[in-house]
């Protein structure tokens, strides 16, 4: 097992490498970045301007099965895990937006999973969503199933889908304001009362000494 920051190793006999080559061909400049973990999974990031056409291209490249569409907000939560003591001033927190695999320049990213049923492999597609105006073209014309997923993403992350036939609230009440899955949306139940479960993640006083060594050892083993 490799750790996350290993460079992708190209294995010639891996079918994913062939798919990646094919996608490089088909997508051309639209493909910004790709991460390939041999024998595990494949991630690509595409250019924002080309989002509308990328769906069609991927479908014609064999990815017929639409799995899901969602988004990620890469901003670290200003509220942490909601475990702060409400009577104390909040602690200093990281505010740097740091993207995951395949990089990215924006805070919000769309995330789509497609599967190729013939070659038995899946693909995660990411795309940056402009910060100032979170608007993306819809994929409903290519994958009909994207309709509901885009409605969910719209109400949870506030990303507009241009051309979506029916962009209404799916889960939330019609007059709901703000976007719950954005990181700066507080989980109120955690804000009003300290979370009692915090004690679960602290080591027992007696076990502190003996446990520290194997725990570190296992972590070190993973990284190496």
């Amino acid at each position: 097992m490799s750790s996350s920051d290993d460079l992708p190793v190209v294995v010639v006999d891996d079918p994913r490498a062939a798919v990646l080559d094919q996608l490089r061909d088909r997508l051309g400049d639209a493909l910004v970045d790709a991460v390939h973990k041999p024998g595990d999974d494949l991630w690509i990031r595409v250019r924002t301007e080309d989002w509308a056409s990328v769906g069609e291209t991927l479908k014609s490249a064999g990815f017929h099965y639409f799995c899901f569409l969602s988004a990620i907000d890469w901003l670290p939560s200003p509220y942490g895990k909601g475990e702060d003591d409400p009577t104390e001033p909040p602690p200093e927190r990281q505010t740097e937006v740091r993207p995951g695999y395949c990089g990215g320049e924006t805070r919000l990213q769309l995330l789509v999973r497609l599967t190729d049923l013939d070659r038995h492999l899946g693909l995660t597609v990411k795309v940056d969503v402009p910060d100032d105006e979170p608007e993306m073209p819809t994929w409903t014309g290519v994958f009909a199933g994207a309709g509901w997923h885009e409605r969910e993403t719209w109400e949870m992350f506030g990303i507009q889908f241009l051309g979506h036939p029916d962009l209404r609230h799916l889960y939330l009440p019609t007059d709901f304001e703000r976007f719950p899955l954005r990181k700066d949306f507080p989980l109120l139940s955690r804000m009003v009362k300290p979370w009692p479960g915090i004690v679960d993640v602290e080591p027992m006083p007696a076990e502190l000494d003996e446990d520290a060594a194997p725990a570190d050892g296992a972590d070190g083993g993973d990284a190496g």
Partner: protein
Amino acid sequence: MTVVSDRDQLRYIAGQAADARVNVELETEGMTLNIGPQHPATHGTLRIVARLDGEQVIWAEPVIGYMHRGYEKLTEVRTYPQITTLVNRIDWLGSFANEVPFILAAEKLMGVEAPPRAQHIRTILFELSRIANLSLFLGDLGVQLGALTPVFYAFRDREYVLNIIEGATGGRFHPNFDRIGGLKDDLPKGWIDETKAVMKKMRRFCDEMEELLIGNEIYQARTRGIGVIPKEVALAYGLSGANLRGSGVDWDLRRDQQLPLAWDKCDWKVWTHPDGDVFARVWVRLQETREATKIVEQLVDTLPAGPILAKVPRIIKVPEGEAWVSTENPLGEMGYYVVSRGDLGPFRVKIRSASFNNISIASWLLRGVYVPDVIAILASLYFILGDIDR
């Protein structure tokens, strides 16, 4: 009053009505029928708003969200072991199966693999929850179509399966038995013999269902050729599980992807049906229940010895990375996209549940069908509200 008999013309009106949404004026007097949110045919709180022209649906739209619990938000403030408790409640009829992909995703990020014995027991419990889930589906389908007897058989026989799940895990519905690196406990003494006996009973239950329900002439008349989903539409909507295989797509994640579980160690078959109608989906589920009993029987016989928990640190910190793991759950493909920042809890978890995609096809599928068929089609799509709303 104009009588609309031409099907193409009807389709056209349906399309127009869908465009105009609510304030639609038709030549015939239409009616808006509200099915649910509290309706026995909706297994919970799904609401279907249907616009009717006589007995025919011209436009229908599922309204969801009555049971939205915000799990994706909650996962961001919880630790990995705490999240298994949450995901148990997504598909509450096959709870154990919900835990497995999440735990596998966390294990993938940590580079941990469960010992072979744990992998076997996981697969056994996974299939047991499939049997418990699908047996209730088969009984419930009868009720939806007006046959009351099968559901009593289903509840009776499902109880045996729940008993053995309880025997192993301590929980009938929400086992919360899976741990990162393995399982909470080993199997109790005498469990294997009992499981084998129950599997025989469940196969007899499947035979009974086949004779009682599937072979019944009225049942066939109600289900054949109703609610047909073509292959391409099924793929574009992301249907999964028996809904996809009922449309003739030979795709089963248990067979078609490599996971550290024991499905590749036994002999079983993926069933498909080319018709894509209500009958096909139900038939595929019946065969799947049978196959699941065979998988369980083979796996309890070949259970390897050894530990049930790999060596994992007491305090679980998952290294930074992203992982997607999905499995073939009773309802279809269930997966988790886990983003970790090396913390005690995940940074973001996207929960891909099968029913969400499976029910999103409803408004496409219900156009032009008759009202009694609405119930049959919804029943055959087979959704669990917790699995839609998350």
